[in-house]
């Protein structure tokens, strides 16, 4: 893990990330890994004890945001669009790990993809529980070069 950078401090200051007990595992260079412990309060299907897709998407959204912040020359960000595919049920009782990568950023938009694993697939690098792709707003602080008068 890199030094306590703004992204890590920022994640620790997010009330909902704290409420879900999210943990920042590693961050840097447009990539982030976060995890969240299994908790009975986060169950989505009481018949199976499988964690709610909503809780997994909250972890992936946060992790994607962290990846954007970890991108060189990034600034404040917000989710524009996030699509999640749920490939299989997460094994009940296991911690969920999200790995996100900001694979391209312009002055205004960051493109991110992420996967979520449970403990087993995280260790074996097996089939993820879910995958996500998203577009995030980006304020890099860099202004568009002024080429047209009055713009």
């Amino acid at each position, binding site marked *: 893990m890199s030094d306590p950078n703004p992204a890590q401090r920022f994640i620790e200051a997010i009330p909902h990330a704290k409420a879900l007990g999210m943990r920042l595992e590693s961050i840097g260079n447009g990539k982030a890994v976060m995890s969240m412990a299994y908790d009975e309060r986060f169950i989505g299907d009481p018949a199976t004890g499988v964690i709610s897709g909503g809780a997994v998407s909250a972890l992936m959204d*946060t992790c994607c945001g962290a990846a954007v912040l970890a991108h060189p020359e990034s600034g404040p960000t917000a989710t524009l669009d996030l699509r999640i*595919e*749920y490939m299989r049920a997460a094994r009940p009782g296991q911690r969920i790990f999200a790995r996100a990568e900001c694979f391209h950023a312009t002055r205004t938009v960051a493109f991110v993809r992420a996967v979520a694993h449970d403990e087993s697939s995280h260790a074996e690098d097996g089939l993820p529980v879910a995958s996500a792709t998203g577009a995030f707003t980006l304020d890099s602080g860099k202004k568009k070069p002024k080429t047209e008068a009055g713009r």
Partner: protein
Amino acid sequence: MTRSRPEPVQVIKQRRDMALATLANGIPYSQFLGIRFDRRGDELTALLPFDEQLIGNPFLPALHGGVTSAFLEITAIIELSWSMLWEDMENGKLDPGKLDAEHLPRLPKTIDFTVDYLRSGLPRDAYARARVNRSGRRYASVHVEAWQDNRARLFAQATGHFLIPSRDTGG
């Protein structure tokens, strides 16, 4: 033509409300977020009362994108389950009196879910309504809209595809 006397309105109301409560209160994560459902006939409106722990950006402040996404997804799942439950209740296939946490129809499984964040969620109550655009034997497509103060100013919308549990084996 003979027609049986309709049941008293309170009996019907109570039965429907009980079925909805059993369904909606059965999801722990929905309870964790504080989501409630309001019913007018068969139409549901989901309510997400504001809470500090739902904040994602403390500087604006704004609701967490994950909260918005979870709120929309749960609204879609409950709407889809409710529409199936309603049908079974109305045609007498299902006796809501026998409905409890152990005897709920199996919930649909999310295949994919795409959220469009239109504006940041303000630190106040949020509402959502879902519409089942297509529901076949196996798959369903559901659209959800969420707003805060103004019904016409959506702050998020989503479309999701769901796998419908096989109904004959559902416990």
